[in-house]
């Protein structure tokens, strides 16, 4: 990114000054190296977001930011509904409540080495993944409505999990502000056979080993030990979420002008959060989030069944489940006043600091676990929310590595078979249904996740807790 357009605020923060139609400045959290790598389009997209009605504070970009469609990926923006603040379907994206959940296993690296092949094969067989995959579940009309209202809690009630899973999930496993009535027949039709499926693209199911602990006391509270093995699941709300996003993005394009909202990119189309279409979107989007929470809960059940069969152990314990594509109504202090804001995070994770009332008792002292996914060949990290994060970017942190190369470039440059072979030599087992998909997701097509995490921690958005390395990765 052209540095002449920015004002350096600190070692890790850069400001895009307010110009033209911008109502607030843009703030980018990044190191020198990450700023230089960043495309100027992120600047353009963040400036567009900063011009949307009712935005407060600033339009933020996390250190893994890259240009997206409308909002940048890694973007955070909060809107005050009492000041005409908007809600935008494009500000959340197609994969509503895409997120990561991590489960703790009682095993260490050596234990898993002994059963590596069997585990990899069984997980690949029993966890539906890839384009067109279906699970053995087939929801009736009333089950679908109950799922959209109940989220992971509904899934637990159906036998997919343990009662105490729910408290270790954002929103205690259920967005209670969901409105299933706003989810169309078409969206429901797409989900009938898709519950309990992983999807494809950058979604994964991964066994990871803890290779470094940076904060012993927090790691202990999270249940993480050096050499311990965890399971991470990255996926979202599947076809239902995609359809909800599609329908409301269109509705906002059609209705924005009625509210006097004009944007130079239709993907930024928004409506006042308190307007009828704004309220309808919020309810539908939160119902789609429940779908994602239920989906990850069901997938966890499949994983637990495999572990029980292969390793004969008690069910795996849940560490946390956090979304990184979502809009939520949250309380934040702005200019000394407590306000209820519609906080959009598109490719950004919520990162609540210690003592926050939305955190379960077990994480009150530590702050929220922040799950940062890497690629199939690089590290993932577990961070914790900070007390100062609220003032910096409405308690938000990075969500992953962020792409550095486009999918078409990656397809031209790498062969899936080679990527798998290369990772095998590093003792990483890849189980994938598509070599083409593996090529697109080649680790070299992503930014250095360690640099992203370093900038996140340096900026004070989160604290470093543990580093994880992949052992087995199941891809769609």
């Amino acid at each position, binding site marked *: 990114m052209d540095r002449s357009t920015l004002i350096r605020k600190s070692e890790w923060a850069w400001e895009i000054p307010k110009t033209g139609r911008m109502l607030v400045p843009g703030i980018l959290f990044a190191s020198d190296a990450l700023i230089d790598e960043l495309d100027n389009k992120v600047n353009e997209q963040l400036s567009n977001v900063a011009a949307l009605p009712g935005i407060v504070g600033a339009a933020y970009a996390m250190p893994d930011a890259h240009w997206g469609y*409308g909002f940048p990926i890694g973007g955070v923006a909060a809107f005050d509904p009492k000041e005409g603040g908007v809600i935008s379907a494009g500000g959340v994206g197609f994969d509503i409540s895409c997120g990561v959940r991590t489960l703790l296993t009682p095993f260490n690296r050596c234990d898993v080495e002994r059963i590596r092949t069997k585990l990899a094969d069984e997980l690949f067989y029993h966890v539906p993944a890839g384009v067109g995959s279906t699970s053995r579940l087939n929801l009736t009309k009333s089950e679908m409505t109950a799922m959209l209202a109940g989220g992971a809690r509904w899934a637990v009630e159906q036998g997919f999990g343990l009662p105490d899973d729910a408290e270790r999930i954002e929103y205690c496993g259920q967005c209670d502000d969901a409105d299933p009535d706003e989810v169309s027949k078409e969206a429901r039709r797409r989900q009938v056979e898709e519950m309990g499926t992983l999807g494809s693209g950058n979604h994964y199911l991964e066994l990871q080993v803890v290779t470094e602990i940076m904060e012993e006391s927090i790691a202990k509270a999270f249940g993480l030990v050096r050499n311990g093995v965890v399971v991470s699941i990255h996926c979202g709300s599947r076809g239902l979420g995609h359809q909800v996003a599609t329908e409301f993005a269109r509705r906002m394009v059609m209705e924005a002008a009625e509210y006097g909202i004009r944007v130079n990119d239709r993907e930024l189309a928004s409506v006042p959060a308190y307007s009828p279409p704004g309220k309808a979107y919020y309810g539908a989007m939160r119902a789609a989030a429940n779908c994602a929470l239920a989906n990850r809960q069901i997938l966890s059940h499949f994983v637990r069944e495999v572990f029980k069969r292969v390793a004969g152990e008690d069910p795996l314990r849940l560490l946390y489940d956090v979304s990184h594509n979502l809009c939520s109504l949250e309380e934040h202090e702005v200019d000394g006043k407590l306000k209820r804001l519609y906080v959009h995070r598109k490719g950004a994770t919520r990162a609540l600091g210690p003592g926050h009332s939305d955190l379960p008792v077990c994480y009150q002292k530590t702050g929220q676990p922040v799950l940062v996914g890497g690629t199939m060949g690089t590290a993932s990290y577990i961070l914790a929310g900070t007390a100062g994060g609220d003032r910096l970017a409405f308690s938000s942190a990075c969500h992953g590595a962020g792409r550095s190369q486009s999918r078409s470039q990656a397809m031209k440059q790498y062969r899936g078979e080679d990527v798998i072979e290369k990772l095998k030599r590093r003792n990483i087992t890849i189980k994938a249904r598509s070599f083409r998909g593996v090529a697109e997701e080649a680790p070299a097509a992503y930014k250095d996740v360690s640099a992203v995490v370093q900038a996140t921690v340096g900026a004070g958005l989160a604290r470093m807790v543990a580093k994880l390395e992949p052992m087995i990765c199941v891809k769609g």
Partner: protein
Amino acid sequence: MTTRWEHFDHQADIGIRGYGPTVEAAFEQAGLAVTSVMVPVERVAEDSLIVVQCEAPDLELLLVDWLNGILREMSAKRMVFSRFHVTLDGTRLRGELWGELINSQRHEPSGEVKGASYYEARVWQDEDGGWVAQCVVDV
């Protein structure tokens, strides 16, 4: 103007573009471009017909509706398509989608397309009179 499609670069997602002598042909090619993100279309048989209908006030919106209609049918019916036939009547579109049920071994699908966005969505007539239809899709 040759009838063809291509992908254009976008950092996280994929740009799709269709060219044709008419708007209809450009839309058909854009359909092939979006399908090709997921599967090699030459491997897909034209066994079944699905019809998608949409209506929109301008061509950009109509293009995005059309592509999202294709994606919706792929997802809901677990199908992939290899031939499209589009007819336009003013602002109304009727599209025929020819394809078959997805077969992961034969089609070897890569990432699923989650939706067609309005970002870079444009439909225009080139200097030589041919039509171009493009947008960015989320993968």
